[in-house]
Every structure is written in C-alpha cells, then in structure tokens.
C-alpha cells in the first residue's frame, strides 16, 4: 500500500477516504476481528474445560502438581552416567540432567559420524565406478525404506549376539568385542598432560593467525605462502615436542579378562553402540542424498571454467564447487540433524537411558505425568531451537552475498 502512495501515476487519482470502522458485517476489518475473537474464545473455552477436568482428575488421584518432586531422592537405577549417580540418594532433577547428557552424548557423536559417513556415501553415488555407484544407491534405497526403530532393534540384537567375555573378539590389542559391549584402552590422565593440551591449543591459534596473514599476503601480492607445513609444525610437532620434553609421560589403562568379566579400560555399552550405529547408518542415507543433490546442483561449467583457469582439482573442489554446493546442502542438513536428535528418543526401545527413558521411569514412580512430559518437551525444544539458530547463522555466513 505504501508503495502505491509514491507512484506518480496515482498522483491524480483521488485517495480513498479514510473510513472509520462500520458496525456492519460487510466491513472486512470488523469481520477479521470478530473471527479472531470467536476462534480464540472457542480455544480458550476448550483449554479451560480440559484444565478443569485435569485438576479434578488430579485431585481425585491425590497427585500434587508442581515441580517440587524434582528435589526428591530418586531410586532409578542408571547404568550409564557421565555424572556420579547414587540411587535413592540423588534427586530426580539430577537423574534428568544425566538423561540430557546421555542424549547429548548420542546426538553429538551421531551428528558428526553421520555427516562423515553420509558425505562419503553421497560422493560414492556420483562415482565413475559403476560398482561403487550401484552399491551406494542400494544402500540409500534400502535403509531409507525400513523404519529406524526396526533397524535399532536389529543392531541391538546383533551386538547382544556377540560371544561372551571369554570368547570375545580381539581385533586390535586392547580392544575386545563381546556381549558386554566394546572394551577399549584408555589413556591414563597425568597432570603433565595439561601442558601438552595447552601446547596444542597454542598451535591451533598460531596456525589460524598464520593463515589469516597468508590470506592478507595473497590479497596484496597475489602469491600465497604455504600454510600446511607451518600448521603441521605448530599443531602436531610442537605438542609432541612438549610431551617429549616433559619426559614422555604415558600409560594406558588396558582392559583385561579377569574371571568372567573385564577389568579396566573404557566401555562402550551395547545399548549406546547400537543406538549410535543405528542412527548414524539410517541418517547417513538421507545425508547422502542431500550431499549428492548439492554437488549436482553446481553446474558443470563451474568445474570447466576453473579448470580453464589452470586450477587443480582439489583447489577447485574446495574454493569453487564446495562453497556453492554448501548453500544447497545446509538447510536440508539442519532438518536431518534435528531428526537424528529426535530419533535418539527411540533409545527407550533398546534400553539406553536417555532423557525420554529416564523421564518415563520418573513418570511411573511419581505419577507427575504432565510436568515430566512438559520438561522433556522443553528439553527437546531447546535442542531444536539452538541447532536451528546455529545452522541459520552458518547458512547466513555462507550465503551468496548479492550486491
């Protein structure tokens, strides 16, 4: 409307008189207001009716409302925790926190692995090798058309069908595959390791500074100083040198068979392994299609033009094709990440104690169903919104800047 006001062709036209709202059904403004009031009114009435029912039902069942129960001690047995957990001493609130961390543990590892695996499959579908292209196509078609819940159950059964600790598979020294999970050696933490970590951080920072300097030099002189030898020196050699200077402190906590079970080392439980593996394998089939269509969306002329400029293939991929493909890839990728996180709630079917599973137990013990489910929903909404926000920021960062 405001654009029309400035239009010179309308200068001579008579402006419509400003009307006040008429109390008539033929006035569109009044109509919209009436409709909205009616719709909101009906909705409010329904909500009030349900709320009244709920409070009556709750009082009939002697269930107190409110979040006070979160401070009560919980007797939920939790097998896998990142925080310390003592049943019947620690509170429901802490149990939920452990659940959130367990969900995050699956989500973060799952997103990273699914991205890598999905990208490999997606590139494989475009391979000139007929066998690779066919196999990856079959992978994508098959896994997308079978419910993820069924896949999770399948992986879980498979991992539980592994032999017991005494006949465990022993593919690498210190690594055992058995029905108790995957046992891996852990690095024993020593105080001097902090210096090595610090050296690595310093190395990364210095490399980034050097890269920025190289870019400035390139903008000024046209030649780009090599970045990777300095980077290798700073990120890999420097921390190793610090470690060696400190006397090379190193000890491994290697799992070993004692009696009927393993002692020492770290454990990846069958539940966690099945859930992560299932989600990665399933989500990768979607990511592969996104990557493939992203790469195909870049016109072939871009490759040819870059080749005509004498750029080599890796450079073209990194600086010409990938930046354009990413614009197509990032938005659908976001929804796949969100799907992976939401699908991690299927943990409950195979007994991994994520937020949904722990809250389910909590709900059964306390009867606080409304509060529990609301809390879980809030947790997932926070996950979803923060990932969306981050991916939107990244998308804006890589978007085409038009004049």
């Amino acid at each position: 409307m405001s654009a029309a006001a400035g239009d010179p062709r309308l200068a001579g036209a008579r402006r419509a008189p400003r009307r006040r709202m008429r109390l008539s059904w033929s006035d569109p403004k009044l109509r919209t207001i009436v409709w909205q009031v009616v719709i909101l009114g009906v909705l409010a009435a329904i909500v009030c009716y349900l709320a009244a029912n709920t409070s009556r039902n709750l009082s009939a069942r002697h269930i107190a409302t409110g979040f006070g129960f979160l401070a009560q001690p919980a007797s939920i047995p939790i097998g896998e925790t990142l925080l310390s957990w003592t049943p019947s001493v620690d509170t429901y609130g802490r149990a939920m926190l452990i659940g959130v961390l367990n969900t995050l543990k699956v989500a973060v590892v799952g997103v990273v692995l699914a991205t890598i695996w999905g990208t490999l499959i997606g590139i494989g579908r475009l391979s000139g090798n007929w066998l690779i292209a066919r196999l990856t196509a079959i992978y994508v078609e098959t896994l997308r058309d079978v419910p993820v819940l069924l896949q999770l159950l399948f992986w879980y059964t498979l991992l539980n069908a592994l032999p017991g600790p005494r006949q465990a598979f022993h593919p690498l020294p210190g690594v055992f595959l058995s029905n108790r999970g995957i046992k891996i050696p852990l690095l024993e933490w020593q105080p001097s390791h902090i210096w090595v970590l610090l050296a690595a951080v310093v190395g990364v920072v210095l490399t980034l500074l050097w890269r920025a300097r190289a870019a400035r030099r390139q903008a000024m002189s046209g030649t780009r100083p090599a970045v990777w030898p300095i980077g290798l020196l700073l990120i890999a050699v420097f921390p190793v040198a610090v470690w060696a200077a400190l006397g090379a402190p190193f000890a491994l906590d290697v799992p070993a068979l004692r009696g009927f079970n393993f002692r020492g080392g770290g454990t990846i439980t069958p539940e966690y392994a099945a859930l992560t593996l299932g989600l990665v394998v399933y989500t990768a089939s979607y990511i592969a299609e996104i990557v493939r269509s992203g790469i195909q969306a870049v016109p072939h002329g871009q490759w040819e033009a870059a080749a005509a400029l004498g750029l080599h293939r890796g450079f073209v991929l990194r600086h010409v094709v990938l930046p354009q493909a990413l614009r197509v890839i990032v938005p659908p990728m976001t929804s796949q990440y969100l799907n992976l996180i939401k699908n991690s709630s299927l943990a409950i079917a195979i007994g991994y104690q994520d937020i949904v599973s722990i809250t389910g137990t909590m709900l059964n013990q306390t009867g606080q169903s409304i509060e529990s489910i609301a809390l879980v929903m809030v947790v997932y909404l926070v996950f979803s919104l923060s990932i969306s926000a981050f991916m939107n920021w990244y998308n804006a960062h890589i978007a085409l800047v038009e004049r």
Partner: protein
Amino acid sequence: MGSSTTAATAGATPARQRPSAARIGPAAWLRANLFGSWASSAATLVLLYLILRAGWSFIDWAVIRAIWQVPAGAHGPDTTICRQAQGIGACWAVVGEKYRFILFGFYPYAEQWRPALVVALFIALFIVSGVRRFWRRELALLWIATLVAIGVLMWGGVLGLSYVPQNQWGGLPITLILATFGLALAFPLAVAVALGRRATSLPAVRLLCVIYVELIRGVPLITLLFMASVMFPLFLPQGVDIDKLLRAQVAFILFAAAYLAEVVRGGLQALPKGQSEAADALGLSYWQKTRLIILPQALRLVIPPLVNTFIGFFKDTSLVLIIGIFDLMKSGTVAIAEPAWQGLSSEIYILLAVIYFAFCFSMSKYSRNLERTFGRARNR
C-alpha cells in the same frame, strides 16, 4: 520424519554422461565403468571380493543351511533343530509358524480372512488413488466408502459378522489403519493450518498456527505418544474413557498435520501472487478463491513431497510399539518373545523389514515417477 529433504534432492538432474571415446561392447564398458584408473580398479576388486564373501555367507545362512520346517512336538512345534542351527543357518520355520500372528495379532483365528480382506482393500485403495485418471471428486466418496467398509469388517457385529472388540486387533491392519486414517484426517487439518499461517489479516490465528507447527516439529513423536497414553486420560471428564488406539491415533494426526502443513505451505508460497490477485480482481470471496484457484494449483505442486512425507509417517507408525499398541512391529517382537522361538529375531526382523520396505519402496518409486511426469509437463 526426514521426508522434507527428499523433496529437495529428488529434483536434481541426472548425472551428465560424456560420450565415450572407446568402442562399444562389454569390454569397453568394463574398462570405462569398472577399471577406469588403477584406483578405480582396486576399489572394484576389493568391493567384488567383499560382495562375493558377504553374499556367499548370506546365501549359506539364508538358503543352504536354513531350516524350513520343524517337526511337531508334544507342546507345539519342536524347535531343537533351530536352536542347534542358531548362528549357522536361518530358521524360516518360525516365519511359517508365526506369519498369521505377525500379520493379524490376536484376531480370532477363524475370522482372520477379515483383516486379510482389510489389508487387500487398503492396498486397492492406495493403487486406485495413485492413478491420475481417478483424481476427481468421486475419489473422496470412494475413500469414505472404503474406510466404512474397513470399519465394518474389523469390528463386525453387523451383516452376520461376529463382533471383534478392538483390543483383539493387531498386526498389519493396525499399522495401515494408523497410517491411513492418520493421513486422511491430518491432511484437512494441515491445509487449514497452512492457510492460517499465511492469513496476514488474522494475526492471532497466524500466531496460533506458528506455535502449533513449531512446537510439534520441535519434539519427538515419542513424547506425543506418551502424552496420548498418560496425559490424555487426565484431560477427559471422569468416567469417560477413550481407548488407547484412538488416543494414539489422535496424537499421530496432530503430529502428521504439523509436518504436512509445512509441505502445503511450501506449495502456497511457490504459487505466483498474480493468481491470488487475479482471483480478487474477479470478485471472488476468500473461500471461493482458496477452493477454486489457490489450493488446486498449490497442492498439485507439492504432491511429490507429500508422498515422501507419507512414507515417513508410514515408517513412524512403528513407534506405537513403545506405548504397547499391537501394530505390525509389536506383533513381530511378541512372536519371538515366546520361549520356543526365542533368539530367532533376525528372521523375524528380516520379514518385518521386507513388509515395510515393500510399502515404502513402492510409494517412493511412485513419487519419483510422478515427479518425472510433472517435470516433463513443466520443462516442455
């Protein structure tokens, strides 16, 4: 759940093919496609080795050493030979013994022709709805008639059919009912929400629609199903009890509608604004405009992504297993919980995967065909 992306990917152009300089013939084809470079040759050889090894051990397990029948024992079938062969050969006898239970659950054995007919009716309905020649008003009537017929067949109690209470239903009909009724009822809701989200003159309605869509899409289906199984009963007045399947169905409709609404909104946004302005210029009212001009074109644009969303929901019906509804997945897991057949889960999971795959794959094949036809019309 992840069907929105398939819409984006499926529109991609097929890979370019460069004219091959080599002569035609199988040897040239092999050289071009399998042994193009030393890296390609190495990949081919390694993959061939892996495929042959994995394929052989699968055939060995699934066919050569498989057990197809078990003798009858004193208390039901005698599964000792299956137990001995575990890990060496498949026991397909479990499928022969249990397929009726997996497909139809606890439905009275003598009456199981009824759910079988229901499944056939569903499939016929899907096929008829897929043919473009039948896309007309009468199709809605056909849907209503078929769904009523399905209700009559499942419940019975009329026309000389014995009454079967809902808690005895199970297996594939439950999966199909959840998916079909869910989508049939979610679709009108989704269109309404999508229109509401674009109603600029109704800010309150718009806000409501945005909150609904974003809230539902932000949480997993599981939490909604939990809501249906433990929270809905609290909402109802005392003495009123809705059965579990119906509650799950409601949760499923609310869930599906939010996702479908986003797909429909995509179609509404893709429609040029001139269509709406031209309709206004003709003096059509809002509802006339929406019914006659906007929706027919917008919905047509989004049919392929809609089918992809349907595939996602068909797979998602399996989640009702977690709240204990007897769908295909649940009857499959219950079948192998029986002591005699315990540990034979791979065979049953393969059977379930094949059933789900058959439905989803035919839908995705269909959606791709449709896309190609529409694309041809557009790229003419």
